[in-house]
């Protein structure tokens, strides 16, 4: 994990520093929608500003074995480290604004024609601070992060939980090619392909397990809103990244409960 320095402005250009200064003086920018903005306020938080972290990362090379299903550890590590870097930088920016956390975090990957083995990892979110200074940070002292919308954030707090951090797990996996003889023997039949099933299954499990490990580190009660995504980042069709992301939550406030829900008929 990259080291975290709350005072670091590493890599933030002059214009960005000025923007942060301006945000500190009270003007905030955010990509929250109107309802999100109002609900974040309702939850007792003030939006402080849009915070960004990015990292252009050179992704190393690893030779895959044609006939072997295996994790591409070099690539897994690159994808993980680069995202972690982008997230850390975003958290540092948030810290500059004195934020308790960041909501509505989006993680994007940009690829450019001019850099074949490169990818830009971007994390964007809105930094927020609690009005009465209740401590809402993650146990490791960083601002909390979450990919929850303003509405979800409010609902979560109402139900007696709070987000502690976005948790990620990633696994880049090479799926073995099928042997020609085997393919010929099975030609024209309805059969399951256990090698493919096992490889894709294994890769997904690895990604989910790593996400869980991150949540355990944050002493989370659980993870909500898990998304499993699959990408092939131009490594050829047999090399696939499995990426699991969700928001780790902890109990907060003593046994708060939402009101008994009222069934409604949506007329809009």
């Amino acid at each position, binding site marked *: *994990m990259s080291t975290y320095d709350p005072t670091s402005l590493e890599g933030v250009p002059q214009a960005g520093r000025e923007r942060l200064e301006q945000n500190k003086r009270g003007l905030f920018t955010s990509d929250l*929608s*109107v*309802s999100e903005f109002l609900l974040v306020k309702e939850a007792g938080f003030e939006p402080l500003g849009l915070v960004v972290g990015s990292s252009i990362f050179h992704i190393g090379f690893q030779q895959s074995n044609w006939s072997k*299903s*295996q*994790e591409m550890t070099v690539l*897994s*590590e690159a994808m*993980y480290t680069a995202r972690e870097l982008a997230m850390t930088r975003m958290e540092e920016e948030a810290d500059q604004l004195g934020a308790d956390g960041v909501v509505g975090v989006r993680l994007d990957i940009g690829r450019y024609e001019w850099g074949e083995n490169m990818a830009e990892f971007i994390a964007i979110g809105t930094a927020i601070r609690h009005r009465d200074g209740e401590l809402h940070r993650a146990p490791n002292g960083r601002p909390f992060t979450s990919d929850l919308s303003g509405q979800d*954030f409010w*609902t979560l707090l109402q*139900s007696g939980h709070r987000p502690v951090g976005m948790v990620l797990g*990633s696994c880049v996996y090479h*799926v073995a090619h099928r042997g020609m003889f085997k393919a010929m023997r*099975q*030609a*024209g*039949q*309805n*059969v*399951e*392909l256990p090698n*493919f*099933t*096992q490889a*894709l*299954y*294994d890769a*997904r*499990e*690895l990604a*989910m*397990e*790593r*996400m*869980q*490990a991150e949540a*355990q580190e944050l002493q989370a*009660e*659980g*993870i*909500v*809103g*898990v*998304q*499993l995504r699959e990408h092939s980042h131009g490594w050829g*069709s*047999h090399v*696939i990244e499995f990426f699991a992301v*969700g928001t780790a939550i902890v109990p907060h406030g003593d046994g708060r409960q*939402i009101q*008994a*829900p*009222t069934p*409604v*008929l*949506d*007329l*809009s």
Partner: protein
Amino acid sequence: MGLLDSLRGGNGQDDDEADRRRAEDVARVESGSIPLAAERRMRELAASTTGFTSGLSVADFALCREAGVRPVAQVMGSSVYQVGWQSYPWSTGWQTRGTGFELETVSQAWNRARALALGRLTEEAELAGCHAVVDVAFTGRRHAFLGGEIEIVVNGTAVVLDGERPTDKPILTDLSMSDFLLLRRAGYDPVGVVTATSVLYVVPGYATQRLTGGWQRFQPNQELTDNTEGLYAARELALGRANDEAWRNGATAVVGVALDQHIATREVDQTGSGKREDLIVTFHVIGTGIVQRGEHRRLEPEIQPVVRQGAPT
């Protein structure tokens, strides 16, 4: 740290060990079971009293706590399946009415692959020691590296119902958590997810062929009855299968039915009369079978109509 440690530690370093493990996993998959890593993950989640994973939205999560339902784990099953060789039915195309033939190999491939994936999801759910799996959703994928093969991935969130006796037969449903809770509140129990696929090959009759090809396609608006009938037949076939399955499981109704349809066309050369376009219609059905538990209970408090303001969530 978790990731980097595990990268340096177990995986890839000890190649023989990894190979042995992989071979074992493949053997497990061949017998219709789940890989070792999956079993380990489920056992860990089932044993821990605090940690859970879930694909639940925050609203659903808040709701389930209120209703005494506890998420345990996100469960998954998948299968990569090779669709066998399928011959297309031969037809002169001279008949007046359209004809439909089921492409049985393809239908079977979908149904078996899904059964395998669902079986694995069920196995994970059993290991998690849950009562039900909600939000069961299928994604059929075609990875770039697969040719004619299909991959079916099925996901859901395993939940424990407070105050119910432990069971070794968790119930699957494609309903969302809020729907699941609402249904239970009203006095119904899901009995399981029902799914079916039909793949139908439709050869249009002469009249429809004339309307879709050649200069006659400039004729006024008309229904292409043979194609319509083909679509109907495929849908009825799939729905009928889903109904049969629900009935066998003891369900008295099926709710939350989602239909997914694909239509592909295949051009066929006809000696003497040019080309005709046949249809390949694929229908997937998923729904949840339910039974009534005692009396139907009215929703309390009364339903309130609302108009949503602001941006949709």
